[in-house]
């Protein structure tokens, strides 16, 4: 697999592969309860699965089983149908992008050196590594001049961009991310989350993303797996499913009592205004109402509505008025879709 050459700009030549956990149990020696208890779930190719849960819930364990940083006793994990135990561990890991909270850049190597480590070990030519490094710096929105700098010269956010670029170097079909943005300040964090979502829409990867932050999981995950103490899978589904129909008290508690509000974050104003009554009617009676961008979430729409005290907000798309949305419409949009 590692011989495949990414030729396009974003290296989408290698298709993403699904990851299947099949009755996987992990028990650490000397511990009574398993760290991971009979986990079965499928992460479809190209999707991001966020693993959330408390410390001791086994989320990091589950992730590290995939690249065999931790070994398991029973069950199996397959990537693209192939058992991870049937592949040489070094080959396996080189085909899996790995991003961790501490970033772990090699301090003595330049940024280019860091990104080119695995391509170098795979015997790529200098020219090819250089070309790939430039592509990746573009992809993570760092200036190409960063190639010759050292990790110590970069901010935390920039370092994690390099961490991402390094993980993507050989265009792996699968990425494992262990609280990758957890050490960043809130502003940088939001920025890099947004960019990663963008980047994911350009490149197709199957991602397992560990976080303890349910809001981050809702934002980043196509699917969310909620684990509980003892490594038991409490619920696995889309963010909307979890928020609308939590499987039990535990999940309801975990996603938060404000889950109705959180669901507002999952949808864009554009969707509501298009479906709303009289949405196409530009000459609305709410000409004085504040405006909200069509790509803003319903949560921002609601916030704008409350902050202004107006009965509705106007939804605009690049200056063009799409229509208005009232509080009732917002409520219907969320309550209606949960049934």
């Amino acid at each position, binding site marked *: 697999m590692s011989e495949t050459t990414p030729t396009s700009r974003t290296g989408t030549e290698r298709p993403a592969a699904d990851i299947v956990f099949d009755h996987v149990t992990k028990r650490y020696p000397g511990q009574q309860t398993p760290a991971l208890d009979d986990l079965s779930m499928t992460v479809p190719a190209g999707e991001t699965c966020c693993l959330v849960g408390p410390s001791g819930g086994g989320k990091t364990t589950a992730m590290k089983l995939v690249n065999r940083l931790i070994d398991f006793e029973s069950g199996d994990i397959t990537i693209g149908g192939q058992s991870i135990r049937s592949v040489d561990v070094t080959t396996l890991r080189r*085909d899996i992008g790995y991003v961790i909270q501490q970033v772990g850049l*090699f301090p003595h190597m330049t940024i280019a050196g860091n990104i080119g480590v695995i391509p170098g*070990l795979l015997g790529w030519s200098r020219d090819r590594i250089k070309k790939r490094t430039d592509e990746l710096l573009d992809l993570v929105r760092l200036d190409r001049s960063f190639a010759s700098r050292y990790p110590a010269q970069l901010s935390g956010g920039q370092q994690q961009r390099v961490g991402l670029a390094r993980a993507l170097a050989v265009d792996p079909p699968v990425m494992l991310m262990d609280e990758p943005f957890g050490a960043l300040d809130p502003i940088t964090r939001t920025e890099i989350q947004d960019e990663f979502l963008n980047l994911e829409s350009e490149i197709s990867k199957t991602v397992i993303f560990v976080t303890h932050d349910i809001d981050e999981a809702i934002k980043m995950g196509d699917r969310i797996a909620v684990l509980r103490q003892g490594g038991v899978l409490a619920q696995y589904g889309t963010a909307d499913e979890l928020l609308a129909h939590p499987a039990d008290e535990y999940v309801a508690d975990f996603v938060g009592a404000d889950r109705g509000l959180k669901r507002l974050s999952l949808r864009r104003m554009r969707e509501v205004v298009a479906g709303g009554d009289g949405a196409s009617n530009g000459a609305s009676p709410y000409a004085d109402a504040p405006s909200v961008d069509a790509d803003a979430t319903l949560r921002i729409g609601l916030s704008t509505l409350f902050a202004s005290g107006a009965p509705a907000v106007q939804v605009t798309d690049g200056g063009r008025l799409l229509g208005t949305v009232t509080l009732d419409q917002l409520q219907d949009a969320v309550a209606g879709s949960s049934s």
Partner: protein
Amino acid sequence: MSSYFAFFGDNAALLAELTLVHILLSVFALAVAVVLAIPLGAWIGHLHRFSFAVVSVGNVLRSLPTLAIIAIGLALYGFGIINITVALVILGFPLVLTNTFTAVEGVDPGTVEAARGMGMTGWQILTRVELPSAIPLISSGIRTSWVYIVATAYLATFAGQQGTLGDIISNIEGYGLSGVLAAATISILLAFAGDALLGLAERALTPTGLRLLAERTPAADAEPAPAAPAAA
């Protein structure tokens, strides 16, 4: 005082010869210590095991009086070059060993985990990640080790090996106080000169990225100051 300076002029040829042998012996002993200590220290640091054993053995070796090692050596392998070389290697080895071990073990765990997770083998992690990061600390161990060895090499005379500055230092009857002072002075200068040379090598070998890192976080620069020369 004038006899002290006169001694250098009067005995220039002898001093030059003794100094040369003194240097050769010290360099050889240091080289053996380094060749033994770096692989062992790196291996143990990489495994993150046996640290207690290493620190203990290092401390014991370090606290052994060199004269005692020479005396024990007399019983085991007699007088001569082997005796003094073994004694000097035992003197220098623990410093390089513990520094190498500490440096390799102390490489940021996140960095090592990233390396492992991205598919580097243990050997690749050791040679491409851990050892380069360990260069400054290993180097400081070698420098301290040099100072100890060169300042102790005069004991060659007591180990039955003629030809070092020890010939003068141990023979106050023959060369007088000014002679002993002159030889001791050269020994001190050798310690400083070697330390400075190794310091230059360290600067050249330390990767730029590590220097930048050390400048950014001064607290992380854990390089201990070289010990003062323990000249006799």
